[in-house]
């Protein structure tokens, strides 16, 4: 029994993949908090922060997505939770890209759409990370 438990807790993600995936949360969450700060203070610096944080989140999420695509080629991962993880991350990246374009509008032009999208993207990134880190090696998930 002990041996089985030990094997179940081995994570399916390569450490690099895991670091990239985990990085999406602070970046997208940072963007969300910055958007909130802008909407409550009108201080332009916050929306500039949000723009760069979203760009950073897209880089991390994009690279994690690349790792996930490579993972798809392993036969045991083409179904179940791995596929769900992949789709969630893809949707998070897509919504994040959309959000980046909205944030490219000048000043308050990005609001309130930008704030709402930042919430959506952060939730999606959290969900993708949660599922990604719950995947078990060996396709037993």
């Amino acid at each position, binding site marked *: 029994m002990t041996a089985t438990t030990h094997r179940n807790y081995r994570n399916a993600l390569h450490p690099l993949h895991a670091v990239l995936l985990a990085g999406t949360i602070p970046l997208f969450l940072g963007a969300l908090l910055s958007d909130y700060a802008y909407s409550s203070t009108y*201080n*332009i*610096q916050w929306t*500039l922060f949000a*723009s*760069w944080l979203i760009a950073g989140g897209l880089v991390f999420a994009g690279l994690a997505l690349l790792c996930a695509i490579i993972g798809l080629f392993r036969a045991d991962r083409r179904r179940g939770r791995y596929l769900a993880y992949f789709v969630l991350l893809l949707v998070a990246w897509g919504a994040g890209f959309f959000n980046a374009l909205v*944030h*490219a509008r*000048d000043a308050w032009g990005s609001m309130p759409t930008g704030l709402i999208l930042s919430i959506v993207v952060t939730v999606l990134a959290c969900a993708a990370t949660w599922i990604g880190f719950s995947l078990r090696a060996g396709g037993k998930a």
Partner: protein
Amino acid sequence: MKISNTFLVTAISAVLSAYGNGAAANEHQYGPDPELPEPHRGLLPDMTVPEPAEWGEQQPTVPDGYTITAIATDLKIPRQTLVLPNGDILVAEGSGGNAPLAKPKDVIAGYMKSKGSTSVKSGDRLTLLRDADEDGNYEEQTVFAKNLNAPYGLALIDNNLYVANQDSLVRFDYEEGQTQASGPPEEVTKLPSRINHHWTKAMTAGPDGRFLYVGIGSNSNITERGMEAEVNRAEIWQIDAQTGAHKPYATGLRNPTDLAFQPGTDQLWTVVNERDELGPHLVPDYLTTVQEGGFYGWPYSYWGEHVDPRVRPQKPEKVKSAIVPDYSLGSHVAPLGLDFSIPEMGDEFAEGVFIGEHGSWNRANPVGYKVVFIPFSDGRPSGDPVDFVTGFLSGDDKTRGRPVGVTVDPSGALIVADDVSHVVWRVAPKENQ
């Protein structure tokens, strides 16, 4: 939330289809009462930046009975010109601005806009052109002054030549016939130069010779660099030429790129480049009289009291005081040159103003890229713009030039600076040639 796929597809296709997307139906936007549609901005702003091309054997098109000549070539970004009392022409050459990249967007937009402008390095100098035998051919070309800082506005009061650099107003001693400045200039006053998103410092001298008027553009499209960056911006300053003492003469003018006094009056006029990214038919660039102490809307509102939703906090009391400009030139045409005509320009163009239109980037099918004439009667604009110099834009998404400053030469010619082909053009009725 405006998130739908059709929206994205529309925005992208608008960017990709450069010409003829049916927008022509709503192009009539001239005069005192332009049609103003609702603001609209897709996920991507419309961007069409015609790339520079060579003139080859071709020349700009001018009306029948007029000729056009390139009187100076290979300049280093000519912007504004000044005709001196002896007929010599001074050309201000250079390029300014030091705005940092504030957003990821600036990296991409900056790259795209740079494709429509020159790769020549800022001249930071004044070039003098002379036509000693008055045959319309300016055979002599000398560097009048160098090591300036993106000079733009030029004005002469008696023996004082004033040059508006992007960061300061300076004065040279000038004597008629000089082809080179006798020494370095003396600073009259500093001009606002932090960031310098809109760096051009347009200038004209008042009719009494006591004051200079300098246009100082905003530090952003629409406050996206924060309100602190806009202190002393989007204003016209009145500057005492002797002491350098100055005050805001009018405010709320987003980017007043050229100024001129109506001959025989104390009335200052300006052309203003209005805000972008509200759609192809917003916001009209305009020609207007400048009322002392007047507020013209930027950033809170446009064309009088049309509130711009992108500005926070809003200021309803400022919006109520916003003056409606006199004459719409159309959205995105980018007027950079303004001068009043004289009877020597020919009957059809005797009374009115010439306007150099640098041309658009923020719409699918480009507008501007020409010099127009606005006819006046009884001292007021009295009709639609008439094309005066065209043919810069070719059918293949390219532009051979972009007009900037326009100056009426008292001998009966229009001097046009072109900052893409680096040429100064002279347009004259055939009998004045």
